[in-house]
């Protein structure tokens, strides 16, 4: 597959780069439209939310540990903790929940 592999990599990298590069090179002037400015202001929040919900529920080994991680992340983020703090404690919540689940399952 080695010859084919190079073609695949060039296609993947090429398409991904062009999508990112062209708008950044073309749209240099400040946009005047109030609607488009507002749209671009709200866009990051919309895209990050769509990427998180519902994908987060299948990001870990069990949906319950994902829910625990989500809850911890929401509580800490609401209190405006740093990105790293939120991420680490959310991961810890997943780890603890999965450990508890294993413990419970073994006991039954």
């Amino acid at each position: 597959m080695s010859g084919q592999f190079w073609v695949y990599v060039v296609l993947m990298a090429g398409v991904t780069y062009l999508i990112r590069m062209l708008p950044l090179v073309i749209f240099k002037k400040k946009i005047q439209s109030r609607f488009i400015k507002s749209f671009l202001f709200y866009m990051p929040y919309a895209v990050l939310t769509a990427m998180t919900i519902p994908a987060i529920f299948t990001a870990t080994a069990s949906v319950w540990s994902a829910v625990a991680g989500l809850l911890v992340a929401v509580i800490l983020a609401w209190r405006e903790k740093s990105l790293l703090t939120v991420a680490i404690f959310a991961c810890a919540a997943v780890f603890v929940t999965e450990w508890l689940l294993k413990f419970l399952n073994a006991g039954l």
Partner: protein
Amino acid sequence: MEQSAIINRYSQGFKDGIPIALGYLSVSFTFGMAAVTQGLDLWQAVLISMTNLTSAGQFAGLSLITAGAAYYEMVLTQFIINLRYALMSVSLSQKLHGVRLLDRLLISFCNTDEIFAVASRQPAEVGRRYMYGLMTAPYIGWVLGTFIGAAASSLLPASVRSALGLAIYGMFIAIVLPPAKKLRAVRLVVIISALFSCIFAWVPVLNHISSGFAIILCTLIAAAVGAALFPIEEVQGE
């Protein structure tokens, strides 16, 4: 233009990129492991990460490579999954201050979800040095994580790998919630986006739409509703 200070220190960008890099380590570790498990060489996995720098696109590309898919399928899949970056680049372009063409060619290569998110939440416009600083650690983290994952296919216990799967989402939540707490309009945008995202994931027929394209649709709908109902008075940093 009455400009507040422009954010353009390399060191500040580098510092802001460290949490992203830590999050990337786990995701690219997973990619490296998956790539080797599915039959690629270590250097092939690392090469893909060095040239692509995108999680969803790389995972999709990996499955297409191992399936021996047609080239047009690869192009189409990458286009749909990564089209959201075009929206992000348009938005990021408004945020950059005095950045020349050559720098734009380099910066756009690293315009990932997380780098974009961190750049856009800065309180003022950003310059090229800040962007280069912001890109450095995540790029190294992404490539290094792939290398380690590919080299040590199953070093971490499954429980730790599962827990690290939540890191990126924890970061996203930490970015979205503080402004959502302060601004009613952002709350509305977030709720609409989450609602449509669930619809595209779970409602029959609609769940056949690829996840990459569903993200674009959710973004367009939620941001457009927000912009129509709550047009902002002035863009931050201007």
